């Protein structure tokens, strides 16, 4: 019937046009953000702003790494600071003790921490929910204890100086180089997240998040999947830590194994949205900038703790899905076609699905 096929073809065309238009918009937005990010060292007012930018980027790397576990499986780890600190100390110790080249040490430390995460994950992932969180907190506290007490190796509370990888660079140049290194690391981390997100493996992980028992009943090897993604997450977190060590050049157990760092990762990812690729990045931009501002304005007072605590409470209570989904819902409100309330009866729906004809607009939105 030509009268039927013609309008349906034009509908397909229209929807294709809409898809390609959103694609173009997405590509443009991506290009704009990427350009803004890559030219940041050019328009940063002074080296301090640039170094604050590096801190925010390192938070983005850590938070995205955290999101491998938190976003896909829904297991909330408050203890990823352990992997951050181990990556940093591993890199530093391999350079100073074994005199390895900086970036070889960095990569090796990442692999080493990933290996370390296997037995840790093996134990921690045997329990769910609250017990898992407890174990993750315990992990940081143990590491803090060990690295503070074992001062013959780690320098204890006196700290550990990491040799700079580019000794003849001036400070602004050094910052700029590390800015791009962090951007590259962030890109790789995001790419890995995106690849898992689209894979069968990612599907299995999300099934664990929604209902672990059902996923297992359907044949998802839940334990192995959780363990693999935990190790991947630890690996990227350690790389972030190692890069931080190379850039900052001075390590202190109280900071590296601080439970606060772990909670920042969680807060940033939750704020942005754990199910979104760019959620943790957005969260890191907001929280990281705010933290740097607070530290600048209020100095050594404990005000940033209060601010972090209150923000986390607000996010958990009112916006547990994050900004991006909340924002998309807001946008959806103003687009008439994707109204969340479908004002159609089941009979009307059936009729529409049976019939190939496009449904008249007035009827659909009545």
């Amino acid at each position, binding site marked *: 019937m030509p009268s039927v096929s013609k309008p349906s073809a034009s509908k397909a065309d229209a929807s294709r046009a809409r898809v390609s238009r959103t694609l173009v918009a997405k590509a443009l937005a991506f290009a704009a953000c990427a350009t803004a990010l890559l030219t940041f060292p050019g328009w940063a007012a002074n080296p301090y702003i640039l170094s604050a930018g590096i801190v925010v980027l390192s938070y983005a790397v850590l938070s995205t790494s955290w999101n491998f576990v938190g976003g896909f499986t829904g297991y909330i780890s408050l203890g990823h600071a352990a992997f951050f600190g181990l990556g940093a100390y591993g890199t530093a110790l391999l350079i100073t003790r074994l005199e390895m080249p900086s970036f070889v040490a960095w990569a090796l430390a990442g692999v080493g921490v990933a290996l370390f995460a296997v037995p840790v994950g093996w134990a921690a992932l045997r*329990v769910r929910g609250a017990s898992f969180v407890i174990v993750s907190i315990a992990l940081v506290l143990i590491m803090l204890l060990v690295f503070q007490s074992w001062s013959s190796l780690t320098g204890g509370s006196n700290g550990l100086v990491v040799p700079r990888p580019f000794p003849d660079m001036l400070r602004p140049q050094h910052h700029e180089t590390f800015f791009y290194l962090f951007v590259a690391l962030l890109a790789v981390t995001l790419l890995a997240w995106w690849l898992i997100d689209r894979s069968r493996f990612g599907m299995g992980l999300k099934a664990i998040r929604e209902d672990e028992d059902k996923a297992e009943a359907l044949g998802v090897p839940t334990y192995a999947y959780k363990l693999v993604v935990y190790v991947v997450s630890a690996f990227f977190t350690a790389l972030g830590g190692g890069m931080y060590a190379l850039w900052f050049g001075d390590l202190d157990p109280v900071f590296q194994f601080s439970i606060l760092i772990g909670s920042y990762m969680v807060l940033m990812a939750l704020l942005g949205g754990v199910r979104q690729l760019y959620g943790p990045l957005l969260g890191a931009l907001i929280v990281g900038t705010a933290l740097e501002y607070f530290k600048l304005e209020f100095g050594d007072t404990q005000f940033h703790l209060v601010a972090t605590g209150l923000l986390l409470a607000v996010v958990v209570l009112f916006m547990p899905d994050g900004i991006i989904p909340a924002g998309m819902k807001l946008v959806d409100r103003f687009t008439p076609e994707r109204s969340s309330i479908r004002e159609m009866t089941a009979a009307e729906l059936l009729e529409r699905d049976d019939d190939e004809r496009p449904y008249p607009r007035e009827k659909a939105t009545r």
Partner: protein
Amino acid sequence: MDGALIFQSLVLGVLLGGLYALLAAGLTLYFGIMRVVMIAHSAFLILAAYLAWYFHRETGIDPLFSLFITVPLFFGVGVLMQRLLVARLRPVTLTMMSVLLTFAIALTIEGLLGFAFSGTQRRIQLDYSGASLELFGARFAVVKLITFGLAVASLAALYVIMKHTRFGQSLRATIQHRDAAQLVGIKTDRVAGYGFGLGLATAAIGGTALSLDATIYPSLHWHWIGPLMAIIVVGGLGSIPGAAIAAMVLGIGQSLLQIPMGTTWAQTIFYVALFATLMLRPQGFFGGRLAQRF
């Protein structure tokens, strides 16, 4: 290493274990009622210790009397916290989100303490601070005995409340099966709120006891939350006797290990026990099958 030293450590371990048991009982209560892991428990502990210190500094009265203020206050705060904050969370993700929420509360309390009293280490000086009793060649500080006495008395009170009052009965019914409890006419929401208040009241008692013989500073609560969390996992989440036994065993273990290993490394016993429990018996040594799922 002689006998008297070991005996002294043993008794000190029992005294410490008593305090751990009281605090772990509070944590177990929250978990039983709402499936909530209360990270802020130890932050409230330190808050109570600060209030006792402040009370003593301002009035000069023995800090133990601050209990008359802090216990009702904390009970009220606990009820409000349950009704206004925890009950608002989505049931599906309650356990995870409650951890984050109480973590946020802990951070806020730590920050506010630092804001109000600065990060300086504080200690209460009492005329009986240095006093000690001698028993079989070992010496025990009086303040530690008071702490233990408080802990045991409160645990006994908790036991009486839970087992022999109408409120305790409805609380236990709520813990066992919320819907069924509602069906027989228990106002589970209200009971859950009171249960939360009861849990927080244990933190007030523990904190006051702690303030007698410990140096306090705002970030001290991280040193308490790790051991306490380990205790409730080892004991099996949700089991008060389990938590009390685990608290005693680990407290004594820590105290004995301090002789050969020193104070810092002795703390690792909690974490070793935690990981060993997860490997051997993830549901804890006294918990039911419930514990593994949360």
